[in-house]
């Protein structure tokens, strides 16, 4: 795919992906490279600051957020494989830094942050989609921060159809929160788990073979419940699903061609 001059992009991998789900991060990078991007990963990135910010610890959030602002010096898009962190950058940074000396940088960074599925959808426009499959369906969970924070509906559905040919669907009450909610999950764990259980039941009721989401926070809660209840369904980051699909397709082409 990569022909001609490459498009420079930054990737902000997120703290959750860094330690718990680096495969999602690597697959994000593979996808971007496959579709012609030169990926830059600033090694000094840590966390966007959202956990503290949402918990009411604004000063602490600011201290960590400040560090991230210095990383993206070139005017390239900043691709974030999480609706939640992307929403923090895009919407909360300008407010968080409103009366801060770095207000201008914060606005600049906010304006360049793009959530992964939104970025891929633009990047892969005109992609020759594989023939439509009918067998294994995919169910997509869109995080509330992607849906409402970023105003992005279920972009995953279009992206999955375009890149894999697999039919994709959403569960009943798709707009309902999965119950993760960051520190909410540990401050009100019973309530959070009950919400997660409802979401998992709705996801399982679709009968889909694959569960994908653009947010590892949601996935941590969903997979935690699914695993604990012995369910066959297991969620993965949408980047991992898409990258595997692309590789399978390339392999098949290799065999048949």
């Amino acid at each position: 795919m990569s022909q001609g001059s490459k498009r420079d992009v930054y990737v902000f991998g997120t703290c959750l992906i860094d330690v718990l789900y680096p495969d999602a991060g690597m697959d994000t990078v593979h996808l971007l490279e496959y579709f012609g991007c030169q990926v830059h990963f600033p090694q000094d990135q840590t966390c966007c600051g959202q956990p503290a910010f949402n918990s009411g610890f604004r000063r602490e959030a600011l201290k960590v957020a400040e560090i991230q602002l210095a990383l993206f010096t070139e005017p390239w898009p900043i691709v974030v494989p999480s609706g939640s962190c992307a929403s923090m950058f895009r919407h909360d940074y300008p407010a968080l830094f409103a009366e801060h000396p770095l207000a201008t940088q914060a606005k600049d960074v906010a304006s360049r942050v793009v959530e992964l599925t939104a970025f891929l959808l633009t990047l892969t426009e005109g992609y020759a989609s594989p023939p439509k499959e009918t067998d294994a369906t995919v169910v997509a969970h869109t995080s509330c921060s992607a849906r409402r924070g970023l105003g992005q509906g279920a972009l995953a559905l279009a992206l999955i159809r375009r890149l894999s040919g697999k039919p994709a669907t959403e569960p009943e009450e798709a707009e309902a929160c999965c119950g993760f909610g960051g520190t909410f999950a540990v401050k009100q764990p019973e309530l959070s788990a009950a919400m997660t259980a409802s979401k998992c039941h709705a996801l399982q009721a679709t009968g889909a073979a694959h569960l994908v989401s653009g947010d590892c926070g949601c996935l941590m809660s969903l997979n935690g419940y699914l695993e604990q209840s012995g369910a066959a369904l297991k969620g993965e980051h949408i980047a991992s699903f898409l990258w595997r699909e692309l590789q399978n397709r390339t392999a098949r082409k290799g065999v048949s061609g």
Partner: protein
Amino acid sequence: MTAHTSSDAQPGFRERAIQVLASPDLQENFHDAMAFLRQKRASAFADEEHFQRLQAESQRIKQEALSQLPDLLETLEARCTVNGIQVHWAETGAEACDLIRQIIEAHVPHREGQPIRVIKGKSMATEEIGLNTHLEQHGMHCLESDMGEFIVQLAKQSPSHIIMPAIHLRKQEIARLFSEKLPDTPYTEDVDRLIGIGRQVLREQFEKADVGISGVNFAIADTGTLCLLENEGNGRLSTTAPDLHIAVCGIEKVIPRLSDLPPLLSVLTRSATGQAITTYVNLISSPRRLDEKDGPSAVHLVLLDNGRSRMFQDAELQATLRCIRCGACMNHCPVYAKIGGHAYGSVYPGPIGQVIMPQIEGIRAHGEMTEACSLNGACGEVCPVGIPLPDLIREQRERRAQLPEYSRGKEAWIWRLWVLGYRHPQLYRIWSRVVTQLRRLSPRRLRPWSPSRAVPRPARQTLHERMKAHAAQMNTSGKHSR
């Protein structure tokens, strides 16, 4: 990360939530009722643009009203007085209760051995100030006339929803309640018959009541009119049958002009119950005039502050006063839909409660309920007057975190440690690497995340490490290809 301070020591939100979560029936009640209301609202606003237009218009009106609140209240008082409505001001709930009791005692002649009978239209403001308890302590009989409130009062409970007070009760429970508490009432689960029984009881009481007490949905300044919405006719009866009508009105309910009313009515009823209009729209502009045959001989308006001036002066939280009490935030809140209103332990539950209660009764009294939110944003999306509820809930969390007892507590230390770990990139890379290397030691159970969720295990290598290797590999392969 739970940092329960001493002020949260009594059975708190979490314990109450756990109780509800133990009852699948109750959860199903809430889930189905909320889904029904959401669906009704969605059909009432089938056109999203229609909603957004009405929302913008309603927000503008309420914001305009707030921007000139003191002046509007004076106009309201002047116009009401001209109309013959007697206006009173109450700074606190206790003051309002005293005032209302005095008005009643001055109006209703003393009858030895016969208590004064008060009939009430639905009013959250009177719930807020605990009026029934106060009046009953002074020997009066209070009867709620809204069917939901009537049921809740009979069950000796409090409303669990600001629009649907008895939404937590199933028809079987109501059937049992009626047959046990109402004389000569057979057990029936037939909803129409149950409502008929309730209405029969109420009808008799309307005739006997000395006083009718109602809330106010909108107080219109330029005409001195009180607008009261309802579906059962009990509001109209409460405000017209007894000889004395007392309306209790939060000061934020004032709007500038009569012409502001239509858009607000449209948005309120559609947001609350999905109705284009309620069955009754009462516009009360005076007591009975000389040439009129019915209506109360005296109408009193009690303008209630109870913390609202404080909200008005608080730049960050002032938007709270735009609230028109439609309940849409509750219907759309995934937390509320799981556990209902009682778990919040407050008069106003759900998202708006999480913002209002700490302002009325203090963040110390209602700190924990601010945790009961996943910041999913559903409430803010449907609020008909555009209150940024998620932002305001987060703001309340910030204020709680600044309490001295909280900033010295466990959670504050966790965040300080977090800053240390995430503010220094080199240090971060070291500890995150150590965490991945010690992954086999990571706990299988980690409260409070488990027991219902498996604990994720750190990966073999961090993304930082893998990206470092990846970049090196890309460099080499780049050089080779050259």
